[in-house]
């Protein structure tokens, strides 16, 4: 069977369609699928990248030592999550919370959101006190950022800013750290 896009090469990727219960397929060759930006679903890199040692064991088919947590809302296990790299629902974030901290640090260099949230212009301006609105109550298990964690985050970013010679940002971060350090002991 030839690729439906180029009609030249044999079709190797078959994309399933389901129209009103009738199943059909689009047939594409490797080149066209790649040209269109398609990615392979079986990516060995995922488990190790997401799950660290647990992930490496999952990738090579070894059972993980610890009991794998399971999301009580969608039924996805942590093992399933690290093997295919996708959460099943928003509640998974709450269920796997303990393991996510390290994973996000590996992926993004940080595990704490600093950007916008619904109902706010910018969290940087409004600070967390005003960002009370939680769209998903199930994930509110995630613990609140303490002052120390916030300072540590800012310090990490300050080091990057200095390294990249972005002195404007560095000055802004330094001021934020000083302001936080001057504040009382309670979490912010």
């Amino acid at each position, binding site marked *: 069977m030839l690729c439906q896009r180029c*009609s030249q090469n044999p079709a190797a990727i078959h994309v399933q369609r389901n129209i009103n219960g009738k199943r059909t397929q689009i047939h594409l060759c490797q080149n066209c699928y790649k040209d269109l*930006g398609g990615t392979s679903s079986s990516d060995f890199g995922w488990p190790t990248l997401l799950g660290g040692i647990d992930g490496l064991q999952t990738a090579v088919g070894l059972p993980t030592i610890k009991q794998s947590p399971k999301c009580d809302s969608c039924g996805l296990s942590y093992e399933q999550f690290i093997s295919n790299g996708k959460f099943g629902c*928003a509640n998974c974030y709450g269920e796997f919370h303990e393991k996510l901290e390290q994973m996000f640090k590996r992926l993004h260099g940080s595990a704490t959101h*600093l950007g*916008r949230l619904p109902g706010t212009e910018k969290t940087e301006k409004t600070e967390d006190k005003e960002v009370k609105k939680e769209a998903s109550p199930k994930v509110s298990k995630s613990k609140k950022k303490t002052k120390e964690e916030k300072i540590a985050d800012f310090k990490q970013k300050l080091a990057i800013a200095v390294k990249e010679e972005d002195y404007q940002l560095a000055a802004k971060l330094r001021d934020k750290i000083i302001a936080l350090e001057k504040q009382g002991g309670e979490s912010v």
Partner: protein
Amino acid sequence: MINHVTISTRVRFARNLSEFPFSEKLTLAQGEMIIKKIEAVTSKISLGGGFELIRLSTQSDIDCIALVENHLISPKLLQNKAVGALILSKDQTISIMINEEDHIRIQVILPGQQTREAYKIAVEIDKQMESLGYSCSQKFGYLTSCPTNTGTGMRVSIMLHLPAIIRTGNLEKAMESCNKLGIAVRGMYGENSDALGHMIQISNQVTLGHTEEELLTTVERIANQIVDFELRLRKSMLQEDRLGIEDEVYRAFGVLANARRLKTKEALKLLSDLRTGVDMGLIKTVTKETLDELQIVVQPATIQKLAGRSLPTAERDIVRADLVRDRIEKRRRD
């Protein structure tokens, strides 16, 4: 910044509705409910001239692939065709993919480098849609199906035309520096694709732990550095061998304006050479807009969509050459 190297800017937000599981666990009925909810909200938005809902299940295969070639949907959305949909603004600058990897992918594409403008529009749409109840947490921000999008859920991409960097073998070097700074470098059609027509897309890899402002600034700064590098290389290439460059540009122009048969990759390569000539002011009868249009028109599924039927390769090469000649000649007559 206005330059000839930057082709377009794209800002996209990944969002999910808190009352539904993510796409991996979604039933067809739930997917359908999501489409209806989003359609109801977007029908009230007047940005981009208003919106139209396109259900992939009602589109032919060729039309679906043409949407990917036009950068309006991702190849991934094709895999969720049963409940995959697109909400497209009349001016085609705003597209909202429904039930892709996330329930909602708001995408704004503007010509040239317009990161702030694209971001502003995306935020406007986002604000009007957030009444649907997004999945988010204070700690992790916007919760997405894939952890690589968690946080801001924002991807800022800038498409660059880099013939000098690629031809002088400097792309690897540029890619290495970008990767160290958390910037991904990809070919024209996103992940894993080759640099068709010397088109490269750069975007932020990291989405968590930085504000949107910081991410925009980083991508802009890196894009500006790459553009500067490209322009410097072009200048030195021109100084070293002006006649050679001119020869290539005019040959490309000659073939595109006269050929009777053109293959996709050949057309993209020649369009890249012609674009270089237009940028340098050597060719004045072809505009940047024509080149942008041709970049899409020469793609296999788009040609078949324009022809209104499925075409075998040989016939398609003839139609492609006709379309290119027509566009170039038409602009010359105007």
